[in-house]
């Protein structure tokens, strides 16, 4: 039985696998872009949200930003290793990236637990509604990406399907870029 290979050229000249990931990202730009744009327009119309926004912890946000940046770094190093045919090294870097994802989620869980205990719930007011929705949607993408990355890493460690390392990497960088915008919106420009 013929296995479908996503490494052949498509009409655009881009290998189908990579083209598919870019398609996903293009739609995610509208999803997250729309969500963040909605937040911006509501925030500009409600100056009193500054009161609620003061409740986010900038240091935790900054630490998580650092974690995601570092995980993007290890992800691209994994890609470089895969390009050189070193599946084992690529897998190692990918597992480091997954470690970064886990750290991010753990820190976020602690952060949200604290905030919920303070009474800042998703229904508390408009600001917190946006906060949990945007950061939550992002966190779901982090978790989903980490799971897929684990499968890619497992294959890569056995020297198989190395082209997928680049693909999961591209997705991972997008997750990082969304957070690059979420961080100033929710934690800095309060």
């Amino acid at each position: 039985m013929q296995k479908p290979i996503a490494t052949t050229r498509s009409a655009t000249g881009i290998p189908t696998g990579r083209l598919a990931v870019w398609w996903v990202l293009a739609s995610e730009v509208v999803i997250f872009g729309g969500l963040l744009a909605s937040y911006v327009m509501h925030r500009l119309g409600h100056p009193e949200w500054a009161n609620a926004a003061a409740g986010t912890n900038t240091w935790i946000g900054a630490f998580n930003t650092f974690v995601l940046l570092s995980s993007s770094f290890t992800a691209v190093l994994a890609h470089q290793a895969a390009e050189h045919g070193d599946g084992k090294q690529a897998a190692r870097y990918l597992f480091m990236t997954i470690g970064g994802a886990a750290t991010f989620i753990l820190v976020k869980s602690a952060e949200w637990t604290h905030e919920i205990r303070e009474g800042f719930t998703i229904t508390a007011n408009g600001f917190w509604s946006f906060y949990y929705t945007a950061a939550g949607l992002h966190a779901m993408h982090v978790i989903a990406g980490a799971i897929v990355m684990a499968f890619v890493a497992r294959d890569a460690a056995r020297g198989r399907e190395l082209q997928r390392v680049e693909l999961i990497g591209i997705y991972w960088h997008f997750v990082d870029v969304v957070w690059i915008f979420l961080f100033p919106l929710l934690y800095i420009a309060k």
Partner: protein
Amino acid sequence: MSEQHHHPNYKKIYITLVILLAISVAGPHLGIVWLTLITAFGIALVKANLVVQNFMHLRWEKRIMKWMLATSLILMFLFFAGVSPDVMHHTGHQWVNQAALAATARGIEPLHEAEVAEAAAAEAPAATTETAAAPAQQAFDAKGQFQTVCATCHGTTGEGNGPGAAALDPKPANFTDPAFWKDKTDDVLIKAIREGGASVGKSPLMPAWGALYDQAKAEALLAYIKTLKKG
């Protein structure tokens, strides 16, 4: 397959990203609003660009991909441009978003009260000096409330010509006109403010603001509105 593409110095880019992060975190501490906005969002754009071009290799990607992503971004901005006038503003040519106005006015007060409560709690031992200071801090900003909540319909000078008035029939009351004040007692006016126009035989378009303003606050508001009278 195996397209050979360039691998930039990933470590250098990573270090740049971390430095930019540090700058964006430090920005707000300088306390200059426009500078914070630049360091926060300007840097976000720079960081995102670095990641997209170098980590995601968009720099070396086929051009059609850049077009596709640009299209997504443009669609997103179109969405913002189309929707924001209705969401960012609380009045339009033909409409007033009273719920949003009320939420905004409601939200601004607690900020002030929370500060006052904190100050009072912190100074609890010095009771006598604190009670003298507290009333001054608790002064209800009637003028501010009028401008935020009432002026939308009644106008900033109280002439009944605010931006929301265009949609209203009958027009909002004109407080500058001495004739308005001739036949109205304070009680009736405070009732109109707190229980709405219909409660005093006037138009139901005047909402009931009692949830926001108790008797004392309504009296303070009325005192301010009286200053708008001409002649």
